């Protein structure tokens, strides 16, 4: 009697897919996957059929056609003869610029407010509470519109700056005047600031679709080089301090290294400022920072800073009081305690939610359409979409670009996060 004949043969039956726990989870997963694939296929099929029914085809050739419209704020050369792709780039750069400055200002303001909210000063901490609760509980769009309306309705028109002959004869001052030693003019259209000009600039190199400004590159290279040399100087000073206990004076060397080469470069290139001047309808010369940009930046900063403040407060409160008490017991001064004990630990808690806020801010720049800020949403997703009628292509492309930007920010911040995590030794 062999044992093998007694044991019922455990052959596979279809019912086991449902009743046998070994297989059930696979069954469920496969069914869900199939349903999901069918849903995707249905969507694609639906899209293709609807496109075919309207006689439209899916292609991106329109990106290389002449755009035909003008864009108010552009950081790379663009005319209405440029392509839709160029308009896309202009919009993308506008998006990135406002997102970049927004993240920086929001972080600075957020950290200050977050720390002040923990202040023992009753008035200051309550004021910060009011600020945080006001800004994070009212939709961002309203803040953008509000700051835009305030900027454009309370500032003078360009012609208020004009001095007519009669006024000059009567010795009257114009209704409005420029600020900062007559270099900056704030009108109801934007802020005219002086532009840096170079008598002996280095010119630029055209790389097909982007032009590299060599002057700017040279300036950046000099600044980066100065910082690197200064870093080496400080490191050398620290090494000497650790070896001998005496720290050599470095401050005047640092100042010389940080500013000397830059000033020399500026002098060599013949740096001067082009001050805006009222000519005809508007100020000409200098750089016009449109109010749409300023309003968007202010609103994004104030709104996101309220969230960041809460994140910072939570991060600081997550560190137990024992840590700072121990630091004080060791004789560390309060600012060193904050810098060396509290912040490094708080950053672990702060960074992950901060990434979400940066992503939010970047995506929220698309609300700039409300104040006519021509970012990616305004050019590719607005005017180009409208003039070419390629909704699907424009929307997909725009989603892809926002996704890419967000993933890049996320990846960069995750790298930084890894560097501030506690190192397990």
């Amino acid at each position, binding site marked *: 009697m062999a044992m093998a004949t007694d044991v019922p043969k455990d052959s596979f039956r279809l019912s086991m897919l449902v009743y046998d726990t070994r297989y059930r989870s696979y069954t469920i997963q496969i069914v869900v996957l199939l349903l999901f694939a069918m849903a995707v296929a249905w969507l694609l099929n639906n899209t293709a059929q609807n496109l075919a029914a*309207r006689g439209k085809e899916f292609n991106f050739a329109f990106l290389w056609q002449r755009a035909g419209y003008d864009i108010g704020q552009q950081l790379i050369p663009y005319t209405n003869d440029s392509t839709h792709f160029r308009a896309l780039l202009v919009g993308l750069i506008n998006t990135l610029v406002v997102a970049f400055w927004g993240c920086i200002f929001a972080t600075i303001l957020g950290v200050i407010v977050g720390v002040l909210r923990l202040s023992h000063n009753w008035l200051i901490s309550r004021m910060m509470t009011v600020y945080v609760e006001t800004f994070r509980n009212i939709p961002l769009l309203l803040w953008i519109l509000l700051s835009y309306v305030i900027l454009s309705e309370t500032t003078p028109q360009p012609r208020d700056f004009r001095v007519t002959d009669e006024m000059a004869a009567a010795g009257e001052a114009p209704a409005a005047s420029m600020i900062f030693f007559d270099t900056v003019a704030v009108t109801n259209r934007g802020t005219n600031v002086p532009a840096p000009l170079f008598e002996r600039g280095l010119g630029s190199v055209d790389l097909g679709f982007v032009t590299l400004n060599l002057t700017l590159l040279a300036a950046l290279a000099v600044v980066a080089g100065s910082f690197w040399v200064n870093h080496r100087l400080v490191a050398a000073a620290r090494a000497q301090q650790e070896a001998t206990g005496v720290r050599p004076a470095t401050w005047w060397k640092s100042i010389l290294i940080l500013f000397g080469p830059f000033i020399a470069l500026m002098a060599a290139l013949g740096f001067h400022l082009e001050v805006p001047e009222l000519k005809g309808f508007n100020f000409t010369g200098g750089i016009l920072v449109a109010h749409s940009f300023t309003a968007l930046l202010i609103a994004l900063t104030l709104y996101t800073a309220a969230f960041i403040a809460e994140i910072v407060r939570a991060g600081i409160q997550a560190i137990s009081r024992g840590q700072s008490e121990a630091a004080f017991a060791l004789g560390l001064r309060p600012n060193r305690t904050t810098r060396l004990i509290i912040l490094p630990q708080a950053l672990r808690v702060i960074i992950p939610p901060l990434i979400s806020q940066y992503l939010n801010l970047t995506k929220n720049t698309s609300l700039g359409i409300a104040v006519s800020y021509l970012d990616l949403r305004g050019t590719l997703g607005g005017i180009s979409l409208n003039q070419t009628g390629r909704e699907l292509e424009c929307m997909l492309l725009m989603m892809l670009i926002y996704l890419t930007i967000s993933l890049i920010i996320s990846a960069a911040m995750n790298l930084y996060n890894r560097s501030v995590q506690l190192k397990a030794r």
Partner: protein
Amino acid sequence: MKKTVFFGALAASTLVAGLAGAGTLDDVKARGELICGSNTGLTGFGAPDASGNWTGFDVDLCRAIAAAVLGDPTKVKFLPTTGETRFTALQSGEVDVLVRNSTWSFSRDSELALDFVAVNYYDGQGFMVKKDLGVSSAKELDGATVCIQTGTTTELNLADFFKQNNISYQPVTVADDSEAQRQYLAGACDAYTTDASGLAASRATMPDADTHIILPEIISKEPLGPAVRHGDNQWGDVVRWTFFALLVAEEKGVTSANVEEVATSTTDEEVKRLLGVSGEMGAKMGLDNDAFKRAIAAVGNYGEVYARNIGEGTTINLARGLNALWTQGGLQYAPPFR
């Protein structure tokens, strides 16, 4: 023996999007209501009044279509659309017909797959400036800041005009007429440009209309007209011939006041066909024979619609100009009703 459980096979139903098989005309009749894409609010052309009733030149054409198709000019739902959303609203079937100061152009006919069936207003793009700016010609606008509605043909014309004249400008792109007016009145832009009719309509609603002037240059052709989806020819014919019926009515002196009387007394064969007294004109289009008579009775002929909404004597105060009948030196010309 263990009972075997059999799965019901997954019915891979062919989930194909049900494209509207029936034509728009049948849809409208079945729904009992016409959905008309209109302006978000342009006085004289299409705007709700204080009590929420839509009135205007374009609105009346919608009412005429509703009267012809459904027999009741009030059975219209007006869906406000911006320059950006209007064509998508039409293409996606959200509206049956778009009567919203939309310019007939090549690319809209071809790339956007729309059919402009008629021109109910011949227009051109102009500029409005404040009088105290001291400008008398659009060519003096070098360096000016110009407010422009996005998603319009005017946006492209503006760029072309300034380029041709070798002068520069700073565009301020706004979403709709009301935002453009706010910016213009606040002085955020020196000039506001859109169709000359739109400028006149905007000026009429401004608190101090006399301090604004419309510059003499007309920089483009803007034939404005009703648009329908490409490929639905029957519905396109209904919209087109309802409009032409209003034109023929003006040409023949048929008004909303005398339409009943003319229908019984007329000896003019074309008028008889127009009013459904003889022939089967309405039936050939899937409508009642007196469809066009109802349209005329509801809103009046083209001249009446024009005079009531935007003509001389109204606040908009637009002369007939190009929009006079061909018999009076204008461009409005209906093919024969035969």
